[in-house]
């Protein structure tokens, strides 16, 4: 994937297992969000070579909708604002592909992200909600969709430390409900809750493996990254 003639992602080789929580760690500008958008097939992030194999099928040529119908979805770091769209209706949209959803299931999804249903169900997604509230609603919409692969772009940003535990719990719930989770994060707590982690730098996945080891490596070895001109030397 390239932009303005410059390669943004290079030689990505990433495998996410069934019901696996896989963290992507890396400095700002490493290409983590670009990887997430490319996997979802967003406009302007079309992949150029190679393949994206999902459940044995190359989905790289499919549209966003087609990928979503196969069970891939994305939660944005900065969720969209939808003027006039009620939270209730937004959460129901993702469930359409699963035969719909009951009001109680929507309420339960809100409770899982620590939002009181009676307070939020009839509010607008685009209303003057805080960043944290909008992020929780975004995550609730992932719960109601029940995807096979949930790509979460920094679900921890704008979330306080106390709420972070709930985000971690939510990610585990997604896994228990049958989803694989690819989560882009800067937080050690989320990395620690992962089954596997990969370290990205300059559009390259440097290494994948044990999340704590990868996290430690990122903290201790990646800082002197030579202004991110070249990957760090692996000792």
């Amino acid at each position, binding site marked *: 994937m390239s932009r303005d003639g410059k390669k943004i992602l290079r030689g990505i080789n990433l495998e996410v297992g069934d019901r696996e929580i896989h963290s992507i760690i890396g400095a700002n500008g490493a290409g983590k969000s670009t990887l997430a958008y490319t996997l979802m097939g967003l406009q302007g992030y079309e992949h150029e070579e190679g393949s994206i194999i999902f459940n044995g099928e190359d989905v790289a040529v499919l*549209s966003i*909708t087609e990928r979503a119908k196969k069970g891939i979805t994305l939660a944005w770091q900065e969720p969209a*604002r*939808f003027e006039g769209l009620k939270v209730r209706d937004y959460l129901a949209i*993702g469930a*359409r592909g699963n035969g719909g959803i009951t009001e109680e299931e929507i309420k339960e999804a809100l409770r899982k992200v620590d939002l009181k249903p009676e307070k939020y169900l009839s509010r607008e997604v685009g209303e003057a909600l805080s960043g944290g509230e909008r992020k929780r609603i975004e995550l609730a919409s992932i719960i109601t969709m029940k995807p096979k692969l949930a790509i979460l772009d920094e679900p921890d940003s704008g979330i306080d430390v106390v709420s972070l535990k709930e985000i971690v719990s939510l990610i585990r719930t997604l896994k228990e409900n049958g989803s694989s989770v690819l989560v882009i994060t800067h937080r050690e707590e989320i990395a620690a809750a992962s089954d596997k982690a990969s370290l990205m730098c300059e559009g390259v996945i440097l290494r994948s493996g044990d999340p704590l080891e990868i996290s430690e490596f990122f903290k201790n070895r990646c800082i002197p990254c030579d202004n991110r001109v070249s990957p760090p030397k692996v000792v």
Partner: protein
Amino acid sequence: MAQITLNALSRETEDITAAYTAAGGDAAVLHNHGLASLVVSGNKVLSANGTEGIVLEKKETEYGVDIKMTIKKGYKIPLPVHLCFGLVPKDGIQEIKMDFVAEEDSAVELIAHCTFPNAEKVIHKMDAEMVIGKNASLKYTETHFHGPYGGIQVLPKAHIKIEEGGSYYTNFSLISGRVGYLEFDYSVDAEKDSICEMVTKVYGKADDKIKILERISLNGENARSVIKSRLAITDNAESMFRGITEGHAPRARGHVDCMEVIQGNAKAEAVPIVRVDNPLAKVTHEAAIGCVDKKEVETLMARGLEEDDAIDIIVKGMLA
């Protein structure tokens, strides 16, 4: 002869009631004598129910009806007053002239449905003069239901005076069926401590033409206002928005907010105008015209919706 007239009126009542229901109205309220309501088809008053605290006078004219409605001093009308205007035939003219007064300390909500289901060559004109008295309140919602032909001219014009401490909220919505030609022209004079909120929501299709002119003069100290316009136009439709707010008094606060979504070959123009001649007044504005927000579309697509369905939901949300 009298019997024939009665039957004709009865049929007309049925037709306009059916159109009212199709427009989203609850026809039962028009027949509930506990609620105030007025049903006008063309130039015929088909029914009129009053209630305590409301003085309603109506006079049929050549092409419409002259209405004078007064909410008496101190009366807070507990339930909305329902108004149903319309024309069922495919051609005709309806001119509504309205003098409305909410006397001091009164409060009322008017819900108007304007139904023109078969309009091919119809003119619907409203000319209103409204006075919201001291500490009085009027909430006025006007929802239009038009058919698919677009052969209608909608020409609502109103001048509203809000006296000290009064409040006026209006929501004009024309999102069902074809707009045809709309020329919306409202002006407001807001006195001390008054509040005014004007919302317009219009969805233009095919070769619809939409002109919206809203003007608020914040004449009194601490008067506050918002003009909020939400327009969606597609195909070859055209829209022109002018939202003017003038701050003439200390601590007057106003805001003009226009958002337009265009698709296809539609053309939109939005001009928010702010004028201030008092250094302690403040009036702000924002206007945006563009396609549907890409992130919103992609978010809904990532939940499994087709692109067209995603756009439809976003546009309907904006106009909701």
